[in-house]
């Protein structure tokens, strides 16, 4: 059993209203040391075998085909993790 994690973040130049809302709430709760927040997505893809380089390549393909929209998002991580 293996697992691949894919992290997707909004591009820096694209407005991230959710991140801004989080930043605002953090400040209101007294977490004033955090000056900004951005919100992305984490996907966990499970496979019934070891995560081989081929599996990682398939995950990268899935990441740019479905899991992210390259117009507004960047895939920042595709990595095997303990399942």
């Amino acid at each position: 059993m293996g697992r691949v994690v894919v992290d997707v973040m909004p591009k820096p130049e694209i407005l991230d209203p959710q991140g801004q809302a989080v930043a605002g709430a953090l400040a209101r709760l007294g977490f004033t040391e955090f000056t900004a927040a951005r919100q992305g997505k984490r996907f966990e893809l499970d496979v019934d075998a070891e995560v081989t380089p081929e599996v990682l390549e398939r995950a990268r393909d899935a990441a740019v085909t479905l899991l992210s929209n390259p117009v507004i998002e960047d895939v920042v991580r595709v990595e095997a993790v303990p399942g």
Partner: protein
Amino acid sequence: MRIGVVTFPGSLDDGDAARAVRLAGGEPVRLWHAEPDLRGVDAVILPGGFSYGDYLRCGAIARFAPVMSEITRLAGPPEARSPGLPVLGICNGFQVLCESHLLPGALVRNDHRRFICRDQRLRIERTTTVWTHGYHDGEEIVVPLKNGEGGFVADPRTLDELEAQGRVVARYLEVNPNGSYRDIAGISNVTGTVVGLMPHPEHAVEPGFGPDLGPVEGDGGTDGLRFFISALAWLAGAGRIELSGAESSGVELSRAGTGQASSSRPSVAQRGAPPA
């Protein structure tokens, strides 16, 4: 003329879109997301709503529905110089068109983070499309707008290209309701067959039931109807449109060979006609 209206799980405005086609004089044909068969329709509308619950990203799952592979194939790439299947994507349909790469850019969450529902004034800036040739250049219309993720974004190069090629179909006036770059409410492909629009013309097709901001109460509310009349007229062979994008390559957007007499042109769809 038969115009298909796709229903995805979570579509909301498919009924209103079909009704708009009927009120415009066409025959709506309901298409199901899981069926690749387009039932021989002449054009397609992707309606508003929340396909697949807006999971992942708005339109991201709908894009891979069986019906979309056929629509994408027949519509052709956005830079194509010869006209393909006419497609109008409204609201969620616009999001599906962008996710499908049938139009450039993307729609993101409103900059003010709230869902917005209002009667929205627009300026029609491209009238050389299948869906807007019944409007005057620069005509102002009011139709309902309702979205949570309606902010149109694209990189500056893409935006400049859209402007230079005259592919901004409609722009928001008075209020930018969602943070769309350059107040863009709708765009088209190069030939003007595929149009994506965030506001809802299908909710402004019957007197007394659409936004009515004219001088006489109750006489208006039909500003959206000509989107559908335009398409029907074009499909009938009367809408011979010269396109800015196609002109340079010597291509004219036309339905050559349909053999329709010019007398079949609905008068309301004639370019230069006054607002209905």
